[in-house]
């Protein structure tokens, strides 16, 4: 989905506040929230893709104003409610106040069929696709050309896995893009490498 979480290349944000928070946890509730989510993974209640998508589905104003661990809590709790493990009413009673959750999901999708395999050195193009469910293609590479520089082992296909659809595991490729191709005349010169699933790619012609 083209959500506010897809921040790469967005303009308007100021300097990185590197001194502000060097420690992993700033408050006692943060490791507890992190532990609950981790327990959810360990118990098999959720997978990583649906977890990431549950955070992306937060109402945009809430997403942008919440801290990292509040986003984690909101996403994980949304999944617990959607799966019937707990109810929002019970949580709001226990919290003695509102417990805002993420918005409902759009539909997922299966792997592209057929797909092409690529080798290191191949020139590829990211398909010009718009996906309303979960996708791990940052918007800044959509439709762009790059070169394969690495190949990872197969992973569950996020677009399906986040929606609990059965799919084939597939390989992501580390694809190198030039910033002058991504943001012509409006970026520092560099290469940006993105892990791109096979289904998102086509051979550059």
């Amino acid at each position: 989905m083209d959500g506010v979480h897809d921040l790469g290349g967005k303009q308007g944000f100021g300097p990185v506040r590197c001194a502000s928070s060097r420690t992993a946890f700033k408050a006692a509730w943060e490791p507890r929230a992190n532990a609950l989510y981790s327990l959810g993974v360990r118990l098999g209640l959720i997978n990583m893709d649906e977890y990431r998508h549950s955070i992306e589905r937060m109402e945009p104003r809430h997403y942008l104003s919440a801290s990292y661990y509040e986003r984690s809590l909101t996403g994980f709790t949304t999944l617990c409610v959607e799966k019937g493990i707990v109810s929002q009413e019970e949580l709001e009673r226990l919290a003695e106040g509102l417990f805002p959750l993420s918005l409902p999901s759009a539909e997922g999708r299966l792997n592209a069929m057929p797909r092409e395999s690529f080798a290191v050195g191949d020139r590829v193009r990211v398909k010009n696709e718009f996906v309303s469910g979960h996708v791990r293609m940052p918007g800044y590479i959509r439709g762009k050309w790059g070169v394969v520089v690495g190949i990872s082992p197969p992973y569950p296909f996020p677009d399906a896995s986040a929606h609990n659809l059965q799919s084939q595991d597939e390989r992501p490729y580390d694809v190198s893009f030039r910033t002058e191709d991504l943001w012509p005349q409006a970026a520092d010169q560099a290469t940006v490498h993105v892990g791109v699933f096979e289904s998102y790619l086509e051979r550059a012609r």
Partner: protein
Amino acid sequence: MPDEVKAPAPVERRVAALEQAFEERNLIPAGFIDDFAHIAQEDWVPVNGAKVVARAWTDPDFRRRLLENGKAAVMELGFTMPEHHKHLVVLENTPSLQNVICCTLCSCTAFTIIGLPPGWYKDFEYRSRVARQSRTVLREMGLDLPDEVEIKVWDTTTDTRYMVLPVQPPETVGRPEDKLAEIVTKESMIGVARLEPPYR
């Protein structure tokens, strides 16, 4: 009349509510929450990655294995990665190349090796700007690279993880491995800093 807009419960009460609901369903093994918090703060620390870097600086065979298959190499040293992190790509910096890692879509890192990400890594400023304005962002963070140094940014969009192997400062060559590990910072393994005296 429009519905009254109510403020959410404070976040610590929301966490406590979820924890209580889990407790009432007997979903939480005894001690799990406290043990997890302890592991997260004591075991997932950048000292792990620093030891990996120091070994790579002092053992050329290990360095080769680390660059070929990062996950297998860090496991040699007794470190673990979650099962879903199937691959660790180690990015070797040189005097003329600076690798930098980020996660624009969320905040993924090889947290068991280089430590849980610092706050700024998860902030919107770093996530939005580092891919597009890498040289500017690094300069703002205190790393003013000469123009001839090439920058490669790595966006962690899959469960493959990345870490940067920083350049060993020349004056430290010959020091024992445990002393070398002491100078390696989390920032250098993310790629937003180079290692220079005075060392931490």
